């Protein structure tokens, strides 16, 4: 009972300290919030795009001897007027380049696609020296890039078709068969229709797509907003860092009490010293658990973070609590006063947090292999692994290895720290 009384007293004192609350809850939320607003503003917090306004000047004409029924320019033009892209591309025809450029200058459109007069003829002859010209508003980046990609894909498709037909003709000739011009025209038309349908289906009706990209995890389609996913990793990193700090700070109460004289006074009461130390450890555990829960709930509502399956989350949180409490007890057991405690906690936990990858959780492409290997030697690294797995939706069984590694490290550190405290105070 006295253990809980001591723990409750420590918790009351912690939660009355503005500094403690700031470090426990406000600082991690504030830092995560700053990252959220920084990245959220790049997409306006919403991934939907305003329509790209495209002007098309199609001057392409079919050469007299062409086997095609229509110039390639028509295919390129029709791509921007297709029903499937109407929600995000608004296309307009312009009679010539001057008219289109004038519209661009007036900012009526953002991108102009100019298909020159002899595009089909030169393309079919294999010279390809009359390119499609794309002119864009210099203040735009995404719209012109999308249009360029679409044109490139269409032209590549045509080139692919040309190569295929050329190969068929060569094979026929090699076998002594004279290609039938009417048949070639039919092939081109069939290929063109197939390629158009393929493009349409690939990007706009995934259920009918000829090519489906499958995420490597669990065989389920990705449904999480990338921003949310990034925020999940960021928040986890912040939460872990500050959980370790909170545990150290909470454990520092034993030094504070030593300096305030209340620890000596406690020793004069009929309360055994093991109970006093245990009460303080219990307070550290409860503080870190409460901090984790508050941050998770805040992260869910403030940033829409989906932490994962409840059992996995519970395991990740327990690992965090055990590791943070263990390291907190160990670090503070080496410290002689609260004045020493600040720099030791601040410096030590920042370095260990960096080594554990807490601040580099969102580096594109990840960190070098050596860096990841170092993370295996610090508890923060294993706690982060557990959280990342939980955030990725891993089942609880998958978390057993990081959980076990964290518990072993935490318990060893806790045992060493508790022994040092007992030798010092008991």
């Amino acid at each position, binding site marked *: *009972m006295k253990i809980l*009384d001591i723990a409750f007293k420590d918790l009351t004192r912690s939660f009355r300290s503005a500094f403690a609350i700031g470090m426990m809850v406000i600082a991690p939320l504030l830092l995560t919030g700053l990252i959220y607003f920084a990245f959220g503003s790049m997409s306006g917090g919403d991934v939907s795009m305003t329509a790209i306004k495209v002007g098309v000047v199609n001057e392409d004409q079919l050469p007299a001897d062409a086997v095609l029924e229509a110039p390639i320019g028509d295919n390129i033009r029709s791509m921007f007027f297709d029903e499937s892209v109407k929600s995000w591309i608004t296309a307009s025809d312009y009679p010539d380049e001057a008219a289109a450029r004038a519209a661009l200058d007036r900012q009526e459109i953002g991108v102009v696609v100019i298909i020159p007069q002899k595009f089909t003829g030169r393309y079919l002859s294999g010279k390809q020296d009359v390119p499609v010209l794309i002119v864009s508003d210099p203040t735009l980046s995404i719209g012109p890039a999308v249009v360029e990609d679409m044109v490139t894909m269409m032209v590549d498709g045509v080139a692919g078709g040309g190569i295929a037909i050329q190969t068929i003709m060569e094979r026929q000739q090699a076998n002594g068969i004279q290609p039938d011009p009417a048949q070639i025209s039919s092939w081109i038309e069939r290929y063109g229709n197939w390629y158009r349908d393929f493009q349409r289906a690939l990007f706009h009706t995934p259920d009918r797509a000829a090519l489906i990209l499958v995420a490597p995890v669990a065989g389920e389609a990705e449904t999480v907003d990338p921003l949310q996913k990034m925020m999940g990793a960021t928040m986890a990193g912040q939460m872990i860092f500050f959980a370790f700090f909170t545990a150290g700070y909470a454990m520092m109460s034993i030094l504070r009490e030593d300096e*305030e*004289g*209340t620890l*000596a*006074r406690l020793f*004069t*009461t*009929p309360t055994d010293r093991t109970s006093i130390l245990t009460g303080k450890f219990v307070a550290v555990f409860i503080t870190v658990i409460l901090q984790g829960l508050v941050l998770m709930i805040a992260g869910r509502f403030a940033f829409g973070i989906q932490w994962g399956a409840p059992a996995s989350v519970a395991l990740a949180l327990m690992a965090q609590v055990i590791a943070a409490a263990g390291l907190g007890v160990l670090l503070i057991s080496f410290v002689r006063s609260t004045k020493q405690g600040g720099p030791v906690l601040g410096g030590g936990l920042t370095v260990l947090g960096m080594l554990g990858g807490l601040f580099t959780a969102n580096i594109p492409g990840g960190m070098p292999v050596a860096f990841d290997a170092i993370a295996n030697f610090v508890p923060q690294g294993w706690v982060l692994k557990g959280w990342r797995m939980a955030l990725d939706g891993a089942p609880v069984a998958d978390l057993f290895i990081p959980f076990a590694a964290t518990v072993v490290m935490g318990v060893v550190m806790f045992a060493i720290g508790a022994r040092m405290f007992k030798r010092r105070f008991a």
Partner: protein
Amino acid sequence: MKAIEVNNLKKSFGDFQAVQDASFSAEAGEVLSLLGPNGAGKSTTISMLSGLLAPTDGDACVMGHSVIREPEAAKQSLGVVPQDIALYPDLSARENLVFWGKMYGLRGPALKSRVDEVLEIIGLTDRQKDHVGKFSGGMKRRVNIGAALLHKPSVVIMDEPTVGIDPQSRRHILDNVKELNLQGMTVLYTTHYMEEAAELSHHIAIMDKGKVIAYGTHDALIKMVGEQTRIDMTLNAEAEKMLSDWRATEGVARIDSTDGKVTALVDDSNRVLPRLFEAASRAGVRITSVDIQEPNLETVFLHLTGRALRD
């Protein structure tokens, strides 16, 4: 049964012997003062009594419970008021008292009513919800004492509770000690103020350099120096110049000098003082100030150690 019994208590820190063979006792219901200068070993002695330090040798009992063999029972009989304020500044006066009460095993309605009583005793009922950190030094001292009284201990140890506080708060604390004693509590009071020891105590143990050098009632201790009067003098010349002449003067029991100030113990100041002036006059030395004190604990300490209590 004696409330406090200290037998040949010793405490060493390395080669340094902080307490050497200390022995004294207090009957139930009396006030016993440990009087001595800073560093005399008073705090170390009560630290062993209250279970903070383990004795190197010897033993002490509180209400018959050995602090070595039955520490929990001894602690349950004790209320300790530390020299420095030992409270939680960010908890209210009431929260502090409730917490300390729980540490002595009080719970529920008994705890609540006892906290109310103690708040009344220390005169802080109106301020019970205020954080202790906002209190004045004197108010903190009162809460500091109150926290030791919650479980109605048989013995209260007070370690220099009046150090560094204003006269009004000091008076309040001394009155509290008397009140507690009237209620039947045994009080072990450490101080280096002989006036406090004289006012409060039934028995006084004088400590110096880790040893109990005298023990007895106030009057018995005074009798150790007989009817000797203490005379403090300052001179316009080196004190050493006069000491040998004065030592040979009839009626001078003891004479020493510290920092140019001469302190003498004499049998009858009315007769001896003119002789001291005459001797000084013969030697061409002028006495620039004289202070005469009737026999008191200060005189006793001087008599026993050759030093003033506050040296």
